[in-house]
């Protein structure tokens, strides 16, 4: 049904989105917890930086990444010299671009989820011998899990759809950085590419619907497992 080129774009997209989500998950969970639970100097700054990619034209973060992580950028140059890692115009760079753009969509639901969890439960855990880290892992995180899962799916979906930042930072190289949206864009601009563009567009819609359905299903399952659905109103 799909041509080899189309399959390649699909596989690459899945790989990039999965890697970006895995990269965002630990960082985003921590950032969400931090923003929900702690008051600290520079909190507003952190919030702004986290949200920024959502409100900027995507090409701007992409351009900033190129300046910073490109082979001639300060960090990119250092990465290449020290570890031999090249991000610009490689699929790894596409992961970074996707991760930066999708990060806010993970942090937001995670933050809300942690805010709903009663902070006194973590206090109760520490009076029973749990270190703050252990209380986080055994009490706060399991209770916030529905939000974390929903955030991870949003993050994955946003990564699948990433276009502007990817194009600016890593270009549109078949087999390396040409993900689904870039492939659709390319097919739109070649003669007789309409069929392929249409197929990939339909595929994107199907993937988005599946992701949203999975998000709903996992959230409901987690809520049921945590006992939220037995008694919807939390008891005081």
């Amino acid at each position: 049904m799909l041509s080899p080129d189309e399959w390649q774009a699909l596989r690459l997209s899945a790989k990039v989105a999965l890697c970006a989500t895995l990269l965002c998950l630990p960082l985003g969970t921590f950032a969400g917890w931090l923003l929900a639970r702690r008051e600290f100097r520079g909190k507003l700054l952190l919030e702004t930086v986290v949200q920024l990619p959502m409100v900027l034209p995507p090409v701007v973060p992409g351009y900033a990444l190129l300046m910073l992580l490109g082979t001639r950028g300060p960090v990119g140059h250092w990465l290449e010299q020290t570890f031999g890692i090249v991000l610009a115009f490689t699929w790894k760079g596409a992961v970074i671009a996707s991760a930066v753009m999708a990060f806010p969509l993970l942090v937001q639901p995670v933050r809300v989820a942690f805010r709903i969890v009663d902070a006194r439960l973590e206090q109760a855990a520490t009076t029973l011998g749990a270190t703050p880290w252990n209380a986080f892992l055994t009490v706060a995180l399991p209770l916030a899990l529905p939000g974390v899962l929903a955030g991870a799916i949003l993050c994955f979906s946003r990564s699948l759809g990433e276009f502007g930042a990817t194009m600016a930072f890593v270009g549109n190289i078949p087999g390396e950085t040409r993900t689904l949206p870039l492939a659709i864009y390319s097919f739109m601009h070649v003669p007789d590419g309409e069929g392929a563009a249409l197929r990939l567009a339909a595929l994107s819609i199907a993937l988005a619907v599946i992701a949203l359905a999975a998000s709903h299903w996992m959230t409901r399952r987690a809520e049921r497992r945590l006992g939220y659905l037995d008694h919807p109103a939390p008891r005081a």
Partner: protein
Amino acid sequence: MLSFDLEFRRGEFRLHTTADIGAGATGICGPSGCGKSTLLALIAGLLRVDRGSMIFDGETLVDTATRVFVPAWQRHVALVFQDGQLFPHLSVEDNLLYGYRRRAPQARRFELKQVADLLEIGSLLARRPAQLSGGERQRVALGRALLYSPRLLLLDEPLASLDDRLKQQILPFLKRVKDETAIPMLYVSHTRSEVDYLAGRTLAMEAGRLLG
């Protein structure tokens, strides 16, 4: 056993109090807002004093002069909250064993069965906290604290959310815990009769101060 001299401020509220508390059960009684819960949170290590010291059984838990602060999870002081604060995602059994599993085996004084029998909660072990009545929830909270084998048991209005009939049902359990475990207890309540029923000695608290 427990002696402290604590000073703590939050906005308008000021707590400044000293006391020597002996073994057995001690009651602390006073109107809402007088600082009872704050005092327990300071003893448990959930809040930090601005100035002062606290010594329990010869061990310095807090001393602002020498910058000693033993964190809550190393104090082995259990706190039973007004609303139980059971972990909603864990079964009653896992709630009961939460502190038990975090206590060194040689320091454990009770086993699950003993405590479940004492508090008559053996039939509830497989349930979720959401499936418990208010009275059952408080008994589980008490059991969870006991199974941690605390050196000191702090009770912060454990019966306040229950109606009178349930209070009368739970009080004997608390008395049983006091008589059979010999764990020193600090019992905070605004109801004098509750405190008198349980505690050998009662301190009144007013506006952030303990009075004899």
